[in-house]
């Protein structure tokens, strides 16, 4: 982006962003800003919706009634977050004459990707615990950064979302803590789940930038849509969670993991980034099954949506 090429309108917009002003849906914005926002928010929205599915698999199998109520509430929250974010995206897409139907269509055709973690299998109850504790923990690190996003409606939605994530994380911590304090079999179950999820958790933040930021990232930082790099966020995750994981007597499946005592930077083994690309392109272990379920449910609900649309409004 060469700033000299900006029109007066664009320059004024950037000046607003620079002084920390928040942009509203009806305000003038560069088309590029709108596109970056839709890209980010639609992806976040479908990730919340698809993110309900791995844990939903544990609703009928939760070990106690209390746990079942709590995990049902969490699944409902995730779908609710999807609803909020889809509204934010729809308002941005209005000048293009597009709405949520296009978002769902893009999800089903694979044009719109969702977070790598929600393509993974959840074979045990410990997986449900790890999702709440560490996947939501990772998500809050990213979303916490986005609270300062220059686009006000997204930041407002995130305020509501982050508040509920606080409950999700403790719900996950409580499941993991109970297993960690449990029988040798339960402890082994928790360790196995951590082994399964560790690479996916590192992938969650995206590939490290090294010295090269992508065009999208540079633009998003310029527009104050985001303020930190993938690697900065991942480092925060390590700082927050590595010692906690160790304190439960768990082993992190990376013998090279250590913190540099001087720079405080975490040194770790990179996950397989080719596998990451495969996963987010819907070739993960559960991609097809979950997209299939979502798509079938969407088609089966078509008559309900039709019935409640304004076409059938009385008068």
């Amino acid at each position: 982006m060469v700033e000299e090429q900006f029109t007066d309108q664009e320059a004024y917009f950037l000046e607003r962003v620079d002084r920390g002003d928040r942009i509203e849906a009806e305000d003038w914005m560069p088309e590029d800003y709108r596109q970056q926002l839709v890209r980010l928010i639609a992806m976040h929205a479908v990730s919340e919706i698809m993110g309900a599915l791995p844990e939903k698999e544990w609703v009928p199998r939760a070990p106690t009634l209390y746990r079942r109520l709590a995990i049902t509430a969490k699944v409902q929250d995730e779908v609710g977050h999807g609803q909020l974010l889809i509204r934010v995206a729809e308002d941005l897409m209005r000048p293009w004459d597009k709405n949520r139907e296009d978002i769902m269509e893009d999800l089903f055709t694979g044009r719109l990707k969702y977070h790598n973690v929600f393509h993974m299998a959840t074979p045990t109850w410990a997986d449900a615990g790890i999702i709440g504790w560490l996947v939501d923990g990772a998500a809050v690190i990213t979303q916490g950064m986005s609270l300062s996003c220059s686009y006000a409606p997204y930041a407002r939605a995130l305020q509501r979302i982050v508040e509920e994530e606080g409950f999700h994380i403790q719900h996950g911590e409580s499941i993991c803590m109970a297993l960690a304090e449990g029988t040798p079999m339960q402890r082994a179950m928790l360790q196995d789940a951590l082994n399964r999820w560790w690479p996916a958790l590192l992938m969650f933040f995206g590939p490290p930038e090294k010295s090269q930021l992508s065009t999208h990232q540079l633009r998003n930082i310029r527009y104050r849509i985001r303020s930190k790099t993938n690697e900065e966020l991942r480092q925060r995750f390590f700082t927050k969670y590595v010692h906690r994981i160790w304190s439960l007597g768990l082993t992190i499946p990376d013998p090279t993991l250590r913190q540099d005592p001087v720079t405080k930077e975490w040194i770790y083994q990179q996950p397989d980034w080719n596998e990451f690309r495969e996963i987010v392109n819907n070739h993960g272990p559960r991609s097809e099954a979950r997209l299939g379920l979502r798509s079938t449910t969407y088609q089966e609900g078509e008559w309900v949506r039709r019935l409640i649309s304004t076409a059938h409004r009385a008068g």
Partner: protein
Amino acid sequence: MERLDFDVYEVFAQSDPLKPHVHVFNVLASTPDMALALAEENFFRREGFVNLWVVRRDAIHQLGYQDREGFRKSEKTYRTTEDYKYLRDKWRHYREHPMSAEDRTGGTRDGSVVD
């Protein structure tokens, strides 16, 4: 597939009878009843409210950005107590050092001005 049509409703909630309704977020619905039901489901799964309003977005009129910007810039401290903060120190000063009787000249009992 034909496109389905819904309206955007803005949601306002009151948390206490003495508090004003505050904007919460918005929902997509085809009737006010549906908007109210969705507002409850979407925004009040935990906290409570004493009243809830839904308003179709096209019924809300708002200032454009230029007007909002203009309003933001105008300083109105002369309408607030902001400019009178110095009074506290003055009152403390005169409590400790009252003005003397000589200081109180400047007016007469009958209201006529002394030269």
